[in-house]
C-alpha cells in the first residue's frame, strides 16, 4: 500500500481547483461562499454584496486576488529584442521600472492574448496574462538568448483599487506619492519584498502588489489593518467585471477568442479588429504578424470592430445580437452592464465592419422578468471608451481620496 503524503505531487487531482495563497483570508471573508473557477483556482465571485464591492472600487479601496493570472519571466541578454519580436509594442523603449499593456499575434496577425509587460531590469521582464502560452513563448525564443520560465505559482498578487488606495498604501508605510501610472517600485516587506505597480483593471486610481506566496498572508493583513479607516474591502469578480466594462477593458475569452484556441477559424481577430491598432509599432523592426498586419492596414481589410455601445434604457444587454435597421445581423455584445458610475446602459461589442460606423443599430434583448422574457429591440449607439474615466486615475501625486 502506498503511503500517501499530503505533499505527494501526484495527488493534485484531489483538488482540481487550487487555493490561492490568500485563500485563508478570502475564505474567511466570503460570507456567501460564492466561488468560481478561474484558470485552475478557486476565486471569489463576490464576498457578499456586489453593489457594495463595486462601490468600494469607486469610493474607497478594494482588494482583488490576482493570483490566477498567468505569469512568465523572460530574462537574458536578448530579452528586449525577444519581446519586440513577440509583441506588437516596443518593449525596448519600455524603461526599467515601467509597465505596459500589450498584445501578441500569430503570423497572420491575429491576437493570441493580451497582457501587461513589466520591465524589472534591463534584461528582466515579466509577462502577466490570462491564458497559457509556454510553447508559443518557447518557439518564439528560437534564435534568441533568453530564458522563459512559467512562474504563476511563485508570485502572489493583489489588486488594490479605488480613490483612497494611495492613502491606504501611505498608511501601510509604502510611499508611492511620486509613482506615476504604469510605473512600479519595490519595497522591503516582512523580511522579503513587495513590488507595487500603479496599474489595474478598473480605470481608477489603483495599484497592484506583487510578492511571494510566503509573504501573502502578511501582506493581506498589513493592508487590511492599514486600510481599515478607509473601509478597505475585498471584492469578487462580479464587481470587478462592472468596473472593467466601465473602463472599457477587454478580457481574453470573453470579448475575443485567442486565435490559438479558436476552433472556428472565423473567430480570430486582429489588433485592428479589437480597437488596439494604437499599440502596433510598425517602425520598431520585424515582429510576428507584422507583414500580415501591414497588409491589413494598407488594404483596409479588417472585418470586425470592437466598440463601446451606449444603449437606450436601463435593461442590461449581455449576450445580445446586434442588428442594423432592426434586421441585418451585424454583431454580438460581449460584455454589458448598467454602469453605476457613468449612469449609462453600456456594452462592449464586436460589430462587423462597416456597420460600426453605420448608425441605426439595435440590440435584441431577452429580459427575464418573473419567469417571462420581454423581447426588446433597443436602439444603441457606438461611443467612445472608456465610459467612466475619473481624472484621479492619472493624478500624481494622487489626492488622499
Amino acid at each position: 500500500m502506498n503511503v500517501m503524503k499530503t505533499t505527494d505531487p501526484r495527488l493534485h487531482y484531489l483538488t482540481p481547483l487550487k487555493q490561492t495563497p490568500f485563500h485563508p483570508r478570502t475564505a474567511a471573508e466570503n460570507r456567501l461562499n460564492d466561488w468560481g473557477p478561474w484558470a485552475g483556482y478557486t476565486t471569489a465571485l463576490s464576498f457578499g454584496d456586489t453593489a457594495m464591492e463595486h462601490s468600494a472600487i469607486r469610493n474607497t479601496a478594494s482588494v482583488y486576488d490576482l493570483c490566477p493570472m498567468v505569469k512568465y519571466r523572460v530574462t537574458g541578454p536578448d530579452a528586449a529584442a525577444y519581446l519586440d519580436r513577440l509583441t506588437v509594442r516596443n518593449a525596448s523603449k519600455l524603461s526599467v521600472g515601467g509597465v505596459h499593456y500589450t498584445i501578441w499575434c500569430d503570423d497572420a496577425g491575429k491576437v493570441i492574448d493580451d497582457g501587461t509587460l513589466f520591465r524589472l531590469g534591463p534584461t528582466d521582464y515579466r509577462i502577466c496574462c490570462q491564458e497559457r502560452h509556454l510553447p508559443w513563448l518557447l518557439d518564439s525564443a528560437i534564435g534568441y538568448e533568453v530564458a522563459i520560465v512559467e512562474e504563476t505559482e511563485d508570485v502572489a498578487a493583489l489588486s488594490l483599487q479605488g480613490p483612497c488606495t494611495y492613502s491606504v498604501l501611505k498608511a501601510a508605510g509604502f510611499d508611492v506619492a511620486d509613482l506615476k501610472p504604469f510605473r512600479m517600485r519595490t519595497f522591503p516587506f516582512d523580511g522579503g519584498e513587495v513590488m507595487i505597480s500603479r496599474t489595474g483593471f478598473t480605470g481608477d486610481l489603483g495599484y497592484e502588489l506583487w510578492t511571494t506566496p510566503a509573504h501573502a498572508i502578511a501582506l493581506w493583513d498589513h493592508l487590511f489593518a492599514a486600510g481599515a479607516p478607509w473601509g478597505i474591502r475585498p471584492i469578487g469578480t462580479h464587481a470587478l467585471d462592472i468596473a472593467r466594462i466601465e473602463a472599457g477593458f477587454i478580457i481574453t475569452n470573453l470579448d475575443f477568442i485567442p486565435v490559438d484556441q479558436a476552433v472556428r477559424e472565423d473567430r480570430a481577430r486582429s489588433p485592428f479588429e479589437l480597437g488596439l491598432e494604437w499599440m502596433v509599432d510598425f517602425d520598431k523592426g520585424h515582429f510576428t504578424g507584422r507583414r500580415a498586419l501591414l497588409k491589413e492596414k494598407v488594404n483596409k481589410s479588417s472585418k470586425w470592430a470592437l466598440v463601446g455601445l451606449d444603449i437606450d434604457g436601463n435593461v442590461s444587454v449581455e449576450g445580445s445580437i446586434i442588428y442594423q435597421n432592426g434586421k441585418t445581423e451585424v454583431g454580438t455584445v460581449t460584455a454589458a452592464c448598467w454602469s453605476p458610475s457613468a449612469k449609462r446602459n453600456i456594452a462592449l461589442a464586436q460589430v462587423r465592419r462597416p456597420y460600426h460606423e453605420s448608425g441605426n443599430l439595435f440590440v435584441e434583448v431577452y429580459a427575464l422578468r418573473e419567469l417571462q422574457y420581454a423581447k426588446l429591440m433597443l436602439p444603441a449607439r457606438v461611443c467612445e471608451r472608456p465610459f467612466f474615466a475619473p481624472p484621479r486615475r492619472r493624478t500624481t501625486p494622487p489626492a488622499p481620496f
Partner: protein
Amino acid sequence: MIYDAVIVGAGHNGLVAACYLARAGLKVCVVEKNDWIGGAAVSRELYPGFTYSNCSYVASLFRPEIMRDLELPKFGLQILPYEGGAVFMENGDYLGMHRDHDANRREFARHSKRDAEAYDRYARDVLRHCRFIRPMLLRTAPDPSSFRPRDLSELAWLGKQMFGLSEAAMYDMIRFWTMSIGDFLDEYFEHPTVKAYQAVASIIGTALGPMSPGTAYVLLHHAMGDVDGNVGAWGFARGGMGSITKALKASLEAAGGEVRAGNGVEKILIRNGRAVGVALENGDEVHGKRVVSNMDVKRTFLRHVDEDELPGDFVKRVKAFKIRGSSGKLNIALDCAPTFTALPPNSPHMKGDMHFTDSIEKMERAYDDWKAGHYSADPFQDMMIPTMIDPTMTPPGKHFMSCFVQYAPPKIEGNDWTDADRDGFARACLDQIEKYAPGFKNSILHVEVRTPRELEKEVGLTEGNIFQGELTFDQLLFNRPVPGCAQYRSPIKDLWICGSSTHPGGGVMGAPGRNAASEILRDLRAPTKDMSEAYAVL
C-alpha cells in the same frame, strides 16, 4: 415466405440496417451463425456470474443519430462516460488523464511544463479535423470516376466542405491526413509518454505503427466519436457492449423484424444474376428480394458467392483487400481489483483506459514484431476495467478486465496460430500487467485469450481484423472496399454489403449499416423519414 431483405450477420451494422429497413416497412430477417447475436458487440457470460465484453469493449463512435432514430435508450441502452486513464511508465511513475481541464494540465506538467500548455492547442487542432470529417460519416462516398448527377453533386458537396476552410487550414488537413502520428505529435509535444498516450488512438485496430504515415488519420477515426456531444470522449455500454446489439434487436423486433440465430449462411443464393436469399448451414433456405451482408467483403464474396458470378476484376480487388488482423484480446475475470504500484490508492485512473507503453518507440517496436510475423514481445495493451464504473457485470468487489492487445499477426511466421502460440501471447500480456501490479496474476479467476485465429473463428472477422479491413487511404471513402463499388452495392444485383468493410469503416459506429439502409431505401424510392441526417456541426 419471401422477405424484402435478408440480412446476413447480426452484428451491430447488420442490425442497424435491419432496423432502418423494418421501420421503413420492409419485411426483414436477420440470420446469424452463432447462438447469440451481436457480432463483435457482445456481452457474454464466459465465467459464472461474470459478463464479458469479449470483443469490442468501449463505445464512442456509435452515431447518436442512430441511437435516437432507433430509440435505443428505450430498449435499454445506456452509455457511461469514463473518468480517467493512465500510462504506466517504466520508471515507476505514470501519466494520468483527467476529465477536468486543469487537473489534466497539472498532470502533464508533472512530466513536462511545455507539454502541459501545449495540449490545448493540440486538442483544438484534432477537434478541427473531427468537425470536418463528422458530417461525412452518414453520407455515401461519391464515385469520383462517375458522371452521374448524384456523384457529381456529392463531390461538389465535399468540395464545398473543403473550400469552407481557409487555405492554411486545408493544408493542415492534407498534412494531417497523410502524415504519421509520430511526426504529428513531435510538432506539439516533447515528452515520450505524453506522445505515447496521444498515439494510442492512432494504432488501435491498425496494422501500422505510430511512425507509419496515415496513422494520424486513424487517430481521427477514434477521436471523431463522442459521448453526449463531448467529442473524443469514450464510454462503456452499461452491461457490456452486447447492450448495444440487444437494444438494436429489441428495436428491430418492435418494428416487426425477425432474427434467426444459430445457423450460419452457407451460400448466398443467386439466380439469373440476382441475389434471392441464402442457404443456411442446416440446409434451410431463407428467401428475400435482396440480401444484405454484414460480413466483411472477403467473407461475403470469396466464401459465400460463387466466383463465376462475379467479374474477374472485382474478385481480384476483393482478394487484394487488406484485412490483416493486428490485435488480440484477453478477457479476464478477477477476484479483486489489481493494485498498480504507481497509482495512488482509490485513484480515478483505473476508471478508464490504461497502458504500459510509455513511448512511441516501444509502440513502434511492438509493430516491428508484427511485421516479422510475431506477436509483440513487449505488447501494447489498451486495458480497461469496466466494472470500476459498471456495477452490473460482476458480483460486487469482483472485476472484469478487458485487455486489447497489439500486435498480433493473422499468422505466426506464415503458419496458423497454435495453442502454444496463443499461450505465449497471453503470457506476454499477463507478465506485463504483473510487472506493474504485483500479485495481479494471483487474482485471476479465468482468462479468455483471443488471437486473430479465435476472432475469425467465432466472430467471422477475416484474419481477425476488427475493422473488417484496414483503414489506409487506399481503402477509405470511395476506395472502400473496392473502387467503383463503394456505395454498399455489389456487382450482383440485389446483393448489398453493410458491414465495416464499407465507408466509413470499423468500430462500433453503426454508420455503414445506416448508410447501406439509406441506399437500399433510395433504390426503392421508399421514404426515409425515420432516418436523421447527420447532426449539423455548429
